[in-house]
């Protein structure tokens, strides 16, 4: 018995140490889990416990060059329900029906749906949201949100563009400057239990949203408004399909106004025009809307017609193929290879120098200049002027130039191109190239975006745009300004004259394809003051009825525009 006791004790001691060793091993395991793996598991656990709700960032505003707000935000509310937190579903349904004006059926369906969070209605006015909040119903959440709001409705609609349901830019500047405007969304992190019920003692953690930057654009609200009025007036009196007006600073490419009437209401961009037939498919609807939203100045190409003679003249002068004093004779037509191309004046202009040929917009003279230069030289000027590239304007959807390939160009093609036919460019391309020719030969980049500003108005970023020097010589540029001033003062652009100012310009009347359809595009490019251009504008009337000559319908628009905006822009009166 005594013998037994000794080994029993030894065994019991062994047992104790074995068990203690097991405990110590587990202790080591705990140290590993709770010290080395603590961060890993607590991160996972926190992710499990927190529910995230986004807070939208306030989108940056769009301001005109003087700080007038063109695109703003207004506070709206999103009403949603959390199934697990609703205590009295009947009164919730009742209140939501009454306040939101929704049918009981649809509200009931959403309230009784078992989901983490169900959105009842978004874009609810703030007052209604506040009223619902005052009921203090458990399970009903009113989240404030921002909605884009355009104080001037239609103004510059095709330039500004609008935003979609998540406040993201869809067209126009809104999408081009998305990164500047959008800001960074924040979030509300609430701690919940496994069933999704908020744990009150834990409170909530907010990651504040970062508001987007304001965008200052070169548009001038007053010029834009006035240009829009003029465009509507012209569209109505001439029963035209559409009218576009572009106003730009030819020295630096800042766009003062970009009008394409009919415009659309930015606050209701999805509304179809009156008289649209019912029952359209989604695709058809979208096609119509895309056409409504389209910015014609940038996205549509057309045959520029006689306004393009500015370019041919500049190329001719620059290459030495012609001087202002060169004399020509116009019999009313010219034969190129086997084709007979007519002048618009059937009887011909007779003998004239190059300046008068430009004033008369004489086709045979410009064809002669083009032919003197030859295909290769003309084509290289076309390219050097930047006409084959896009202008690089900071708007989405700019169309490219449609032009013959050089190897496909014969004399006939060269002849038609010389007076602005058989190829297509965008209005902004024409205006930009004309600017480069009259501003001393600097190819500027047309643009709208000027600066990004933070909420206190400090400049965060100033946008810069490339300028290409030496498109034409200073001398050629000066000559062109003089010739174009003559066009307005004494030639075909007489209706563009503004009393007390020196205005240069060129008219155009182009027949649209197919020829003989009776559809015309009347246009006029004008700039002032002619000796030192500070503003350049183009007015394009699409399919005017009755008189359709650019000099008679488009030039007066630019004249009226200049009469008002030249004093406004502080351009001093010129004493003749």
């Amino acid at each position, binding site marked *: 018995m005594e013998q037994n006791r000794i080994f029993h*004790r030894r065994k019991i001691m062994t047992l104790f140490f074995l068990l203690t060793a097991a405990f110590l091993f587990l202790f080591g395991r*705990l140290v590993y889990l709770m010290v080395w*793996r603590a961060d890993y598991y607590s991160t996972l656990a926190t992710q499990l416990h927190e529910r995230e709700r986004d807070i939208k960032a306030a989108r940056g505003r769009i301001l005109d060059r003087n700080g007038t707000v063109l695109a703003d935000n207004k506070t709206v509310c999103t009403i949603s329900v959390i199934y697990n937190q609703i205590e009295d579903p009947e009164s919730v349904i009742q209140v939501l029906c009454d306040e939101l004006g929704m049918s009981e059926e649809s509200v009931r369906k959403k309230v009784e749906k078992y989901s983490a969070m169900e959105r009842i209605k978004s874009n609810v006015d703030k007052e209604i949201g506040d009223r619902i909040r005052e009921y203090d119903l458990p399970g009903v959440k009113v989240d404030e949100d921002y909605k884009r709001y355009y104080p001037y409705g239609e103004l510059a609609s095709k330039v500004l563009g609008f935003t979609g349901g998540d406040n993201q830019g869809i067209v126009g500047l809104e999408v081009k400057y998305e990164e500047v405007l959008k800001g960074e969304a924040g979030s509300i992190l609430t701690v919940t239990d496994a069933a999704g019920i908020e744990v009150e003692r834990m409170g909530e953690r907010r990651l504040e949203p970062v508001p987007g930057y304001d965008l200052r654009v070169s548009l001038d609200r007053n010029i834009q408004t006035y240009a829009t009025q003029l465009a509507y007036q012209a569209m109505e009196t001439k029963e035209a399909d559409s009218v576009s007006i572009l106003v730009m600073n030819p020295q630096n490419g800042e766009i003062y106004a970009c009008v394409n009437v009919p415009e659309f209401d930015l606050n209701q961009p999805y509304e179809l025009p009156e008289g649209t037939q019912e029952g359209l498919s989604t695709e058809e609807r979208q096609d119509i809307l895309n056409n409504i939203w389209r910015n014609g100045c940038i996205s549509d190409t057309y045959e520029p017609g006689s306004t393009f003679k500015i370019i041919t003249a500049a190329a001719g002068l620059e290459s030495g193929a012609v001087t202002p004093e060169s004399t020509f004779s116009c019999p009313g037509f010219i034969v190129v290879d086997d084709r007979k191309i007519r002048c618009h004046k059937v009887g011909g202009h007779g003998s004239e120098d190059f300046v008068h040929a430009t004033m008369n917009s004489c086709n045979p003279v410009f064809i002669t200049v083009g032919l003197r230069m030859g295909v290769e030289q003309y084509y290289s000027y076309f390219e050097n002027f930047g006409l084959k590239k896009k202008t690089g304007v900071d708007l989405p959807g700019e169309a490219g130039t449609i032009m013959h390939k050089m190897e496909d160009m014969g004399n006939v093609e060269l002849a038609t191109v010389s007076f602005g036919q058989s190829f297509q460019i965008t209005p902004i391309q024409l205006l930009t190239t004309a600017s480069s020719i009259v501003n001393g030969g600097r190819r500027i980049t047309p643009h709208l975006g000027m600066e990004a500003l933070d909420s206190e108005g400090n400049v965060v970023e100033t946008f810069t745009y490339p300028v290409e020097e030496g498109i034409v010589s200073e001398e050629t540029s000066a000559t062109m300004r003089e010739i174009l001033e003559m066009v307005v003062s004494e030639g075909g652009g007489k209706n563009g004259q503004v009393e007390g100012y020196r205005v240069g310009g060129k008219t155009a009347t182009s027949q649209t394809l197919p020829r003989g359809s009776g559809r015309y595009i009347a246009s006029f490019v004008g700039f002032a003051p002619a000796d030192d251009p500070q503003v350049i504008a183009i007015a394009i009337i699409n399919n005017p009825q009755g008189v359709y000559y650019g000099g008679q319908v488009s030039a007066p628009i630019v004249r009226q525009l200049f009469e008002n905006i030249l004093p406004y822009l502080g351009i001093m009166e010129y004493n003749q």
Partner: protein
Amino acid sequence: MAGKSRRRRKEQTEYFFDYSLLFIVLFLLGFGLVMIYSASSYSAVVDYDGDAGHFMKRQLLAIIIGLVMMIIVANIDYHFWERFAVLGYIVSAGAILMVLTPLGIESHKARRWFRIPGIGLQVQPAEIAKLCMILLLAVMVCKMGKGIRSMKGFLIMVCIPAPIAVMIWQITDNLSSALIVMAIAILMVFVASPDYKKFVIMALIVIAVAAIVVFYAMQTEGQGSFRLRRINAWLNPESQSQDTGFQTLQGLYAIGSGGIWGKGLGQSMQKLKFLPESQNDMIFSIICEELGLFGAIAVIVMFIMLIWRMMVIANNASDLFGAMLVVGVIGHIAVQAILNIAVVTNTIPNTGISLPFISYGGSSVMFLLVEIGLVLSVAKRIQLREM
């Protein structure tokens, strides 16, 4: 300190009462109540009509009944129970069969409990079996004397609990309790026989078999039976996070997010219905989350102290029967605590084992207190001469 007081006590009275052991047990019980309240109050409010203390109150009742039973048992000479050894074996077998009768209660997809009619108390027969097995094996060791050293004696000692273990495993679908019953038997035989070699070989065999099973489970890639999937979940809890690994992973989240200092008592997030059985088998992970590494160490140290106190009593018991009874109780409590912590820390595959004295579970704590009563009764017979 303990020795000194014992000597002084001996001078005054012939009885020795181990207050240290009692204190450790009471501490664990009190600590358990606090943790049960902390771990269960949130889900109790949701599930039991706003009664945050639902689980704690039921546990408190079981503890009071258990303490009364403990005091009664402690004051009865443990030799009194010797004559009931065989009867106890039959009773445990009967109790296990009771779960098949209409009195049986199914919960968590297993019939592990039966209700005692009239008082509505739920009893887990596995707990009865553990207690009865300790008693029977202690009696057997004394009866066999030196016979236990032979291979035959060893086999008899292992074969006696085997039918009960198989019944617990198969009828009540409770593998962990079956393993504990077998572990108790083997630990008692280990102490009773002077041999070491047999046990080392046995341990090696167990490790080899476990390795083969794990290897086999890996081949099945989570497609096998329930238990094989649990092994896969153990190897890679993230891969089975929606299924068998869910509880383990949630437990690890709790333990890991506790860190060194813990979140503070009552601050657990995982108890908010993320962690199933948070007041029961997984209570240790809530302790880790709220009280941190230091709380966890404190619990482990208390268990080591408890085993140490019982070891002192076993070493000084007045006869072999008393010593073997205490060894059985040591085996029961230690194996269960070790396995529970091992499961919670994902050291071994998940299986339902509660943490002695701390986890919620009425019948478990009552039978544990009866076992402590036995140990105290053994301690009372200690004579000064043998200390």
